[in-house]
């Protein structure tokens, strides 16, 4: 079926998503996102009291970063496709770009983190900095040597500067790459110039990607406990991000195919290769996750072990063991099957499963810190230091649904904007006839 596709099979004016078909879903998503954001902002800025303000800050950073990994992964696959001069992916490249194009929108949900009302509960080092009267560095020198030593990196003006860089850098990259790609769809003389331009500009921008995924991880998640550090952190988040954005790409492609789109240009071979990437990054994630654990476990340094001590206490430990078995062993064995990877339906089931595990992974990254930090900051409101705060998980669900609905809205919006595959790309036939 996917063999011997000729230019006669390619939609000359592109394969467009019927916007009226998704209008209803989009409206619902937008409504949920709007109402959810309103409630969330009230929670974040203390309208419902301090208890919610503190707890919900963690819910927010968890959901925000979760969806950020999906979006930024879309950018990564676009860059990788271009820079590796890949032929197979041309027919699904637009999906990479569409997923990546949600990045600026998802990043907007990070803006509350800039406000002291929100980040006072998340990033305790900022409180110490704010308490200082006069020279901050001098103050830190007496307060906490670790903070003093880290001052060159962990100071509020630089943090805000980095925040802007994360928001603008990748947004600009994906905006121009997507524009370069979509402008080809209507060009009567497409040529190869865009191919070379995309390849050229994807090289150095890959560095911006690497910096963004690594340092957003440092600033937003590792910063939850300023004492803790892990050299594997950036690559750990990168592994989860790439894996799960591929899961989203598979789901989008499978859905589009079930709706009669991407006809002739994608087939079992494309799903096979995407399944293989899913498999590869499942293994990569496990490799990195274990390496991080291994280094910390072996070295046994107080500042480093805190992360795993918290997560190996109480019910969090069950979650961590669950992650080993169900984020790695199960999908590893399941994805070994070649026939499964060639079948969009079965592969989609695995993709949904992988995303569920990613939720758990990120929940275990962000949330266990809540009971510890909040108990330290204000025991009168949040109670003594504990592994978890009962009832706070409702906020997690709200934040997840809110940003998730917005993510879905912007993804569907992006899908509806342009042709679903680059119909005038010089390599579209190569990609359509690809066999592995």
């Amino acid at each position, binding site marked *: 079926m996917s*063999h011997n596709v000729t230019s006669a099979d390619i939609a000359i004016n592109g394969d467009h998503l019927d916007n009226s078909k998704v209008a209803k879903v989009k409206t619902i998503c937008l409504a949920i996102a709007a109402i959810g954001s309103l409630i969330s902002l009230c929670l974040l800025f203390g309208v419902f009291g301090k208890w919610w303000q503190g707890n919900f800050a963690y819910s927010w950073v968890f959901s925000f970063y979760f969806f950020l990994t999906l979006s930024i992964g879309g950018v990564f696959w676009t860059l990788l496709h271009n820079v590796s001069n890949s032929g197979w992916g041309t027919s699904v490249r637009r999906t990479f770009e569409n997923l990546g194009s949600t990045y600026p929108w998802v990043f907007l949900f990070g803006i509350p983190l800039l406000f002291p009302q929100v980040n006072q509960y998340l990033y305790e080092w900022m409180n110490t900095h704010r308490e200082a009267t006069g020279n901050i560095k001098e103050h830190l020198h007496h307060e906490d040597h670790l903070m003093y030593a880290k001052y060159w990196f962990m100071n509020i003006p630089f943090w805000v500067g980095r925040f802007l860089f994360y928001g603008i850098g990748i947004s600009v990259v994906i905006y121009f790459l997507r524009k370069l790609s979509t402008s080809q769809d209507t060009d009567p003389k497409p040529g190869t110039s865009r191919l070379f331009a995309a390849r050229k500009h994807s090289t150095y921008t890959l560095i911006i990607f690497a910096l963004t995924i690594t340092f957003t991880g440092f600033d937003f998640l590792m910063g939850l406990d300023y004492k803790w550090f892990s050299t594997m952190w950036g690559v750990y988040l990168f592994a989860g991000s790439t894996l799960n954005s591929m899961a989203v790409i598979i789901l989008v492609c499978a859905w589009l195919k079930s709706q009669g789109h991407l006809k002739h240009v994608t087939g079992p071979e494309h799903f096979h290769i995407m399944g293989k990437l899913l498999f590869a990054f499942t293994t990569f994630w496990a490799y990195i996750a274990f390496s991080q*654990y291994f280094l910390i476990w072996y070295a*046994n340094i107080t500042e480093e072990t805190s992360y795993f001590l918290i997560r190996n206490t109480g019910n969090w430990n069950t979650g961590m063991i669950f992650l080993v078995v169900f984020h790695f062993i199960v999908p590893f064995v399941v994805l070994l099957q070649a026939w499964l990877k060639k079948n969009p339906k079965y592969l989609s089931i695995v993709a949904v499963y992988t995303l569920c595990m990613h939720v758990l992974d990120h929940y275990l990254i962000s949330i266990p810190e809540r009971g510890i930090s909040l108990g330290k900051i204000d025991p009168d409101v949040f109670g003594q230091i504990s592994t978890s705060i009962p009832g706070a998980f409702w906020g997690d669900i709200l934040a997840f649904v809110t940003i998730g609905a917005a993510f879905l809205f912007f993804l569907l919006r992006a899908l509806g904007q342009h042709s679903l595959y680059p119909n005038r790309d010089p390599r579209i036939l190569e990609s359509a006839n690809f*066999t592995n």
Partner: protein
Amino acid sequence: MSNTRKRVYGYLAEFKSASALYKAAAKVRDAGFRKWDCYTPYPVHGLDDAMGLKRSILPWFVFFGGITGCATGFALAYTTQVVIYPTVVQAKPTNIFTIPAFFPVLFELTILFSAFTVLFGLLGLIQLPRLNHPLFASKQFHRATDDGFFIAIEARDAKFSPEGTRDLLAEIGGDNIELVEEEEN
């Protein structure tokens, strides 16, 4: 001089191009032959489907090879460092919970055993190394490494017949059809 009997290997036929070979292979497959093969100067994508080749059993060898390697690694590390000579490093326990320290060994041996089963399993399945192949008796066969596209149907195949198979090869576009006999030893 030439009254010694030679064993017949099968028919060898040449095809004009990779595309002609591809189409011919599908027809040989549909004719129900099992013991036959295609010979091309370069890999032809999709030819395995056209030939109706089943998926190789090799991945299963590798899977169990890997499991064997992992088990070997565990037995090795556990026996030496926990059972025979408990080694306390940095106050780490010497029991089953020492397992993170064994992981590099488990991992490497899994890879090593998998790689060995790939290599030796592959050599076994394709029956290499061998000193000679009956097709080398053909004068035209060397072109399979240059510009020749060949199909060889073995006489061992149940469907093989001296006339029928030759006619089939001619019918599907084969040129220079040759009955290959094994060389005298």
